[in-house]
């Protein structure tokens, strides 16, 4: 499943569609601790988290994840949205809890 297909799935609201929405999502990662995510988030994964500060975007970019999904209705402030746009990152959001959001993506990835 590509990032664009995840967007088109209509389950999540698009905060920002990034530069590389044709990128294949190759895994799924759930974690709110940036220290852990930095070293463990697999490249190409969809990262589901409730940690919506500006450093989340830096970690996502450097760990090379395919996209971020903000769960539990977490809102990003203007600064963070602007940073997502500047970095070309795809950020989605949902009112769903982390587990339910990740489970839905898992089902799309693995049927």
């Amino acid at each position, binding site marked *: 499943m590509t990032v664009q297909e995840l967007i088109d799935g209509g389950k999540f609201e698009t905060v920002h569609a990034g530069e590389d929405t044709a990128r294949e999502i190759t895994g799924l990662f759930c974690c709110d601790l940036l220290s852990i995510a930095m070293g463990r988030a697999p490249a190409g994964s969809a990262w589901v988290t409730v940690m919506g500060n*500006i450093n989340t975007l*830096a*970690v996502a970019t450097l760990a*090379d994840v395919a996209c971020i999904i903000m769960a539990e209705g977490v809102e990003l402030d203007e600064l963070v949205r602007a940073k997502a746009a500047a970095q070309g990152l795809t950020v989605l959001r949902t009112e769903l809890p982390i587990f339910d959001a990740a489970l839905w993506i898992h089902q799309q990835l693995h049927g």
Partner: protein
Amino acid sequence: MEDVIALTYHISPDDFTRAGEASSDVKGKLKQLGVSPEAIRKVAIAMYEGEINMVIHAKGGEITVEITPERIRMILADVGPGIPDVDLAMKAGYSTAPDEIRSLGFGAGMGLPNMKKYTDEMKIETTPGVGTTIRMEVLLNG
């Protein structure tokens, strides 16, 4: 003589909105140079961990990155408080980060262990009260 591209970044203290910009810039330059995605990811993770440490603990500092066809060398120098016990600081889970840093999602004690894990060589020179210099290398073509 070996071809070397050298980059230098000044890291501002306590500026969490800019933390990671130096690492992102290096990542972009390595991509332009055609370095493998695996090596870029290793450099990006190791350098970001160092960069964020400098922002949190060390009143900022300076990062020099040297790129050759064989390796990427990162030198992170600060004039912060130093690391009193390096072995302890290298233990996964050990952290001296204050509560406000933890609330941002950091401070899990993974910084130095990640830097070691994602580099082929890492050396720490530190003197309490004087500062810390960390040298890391990621080998290419390997």
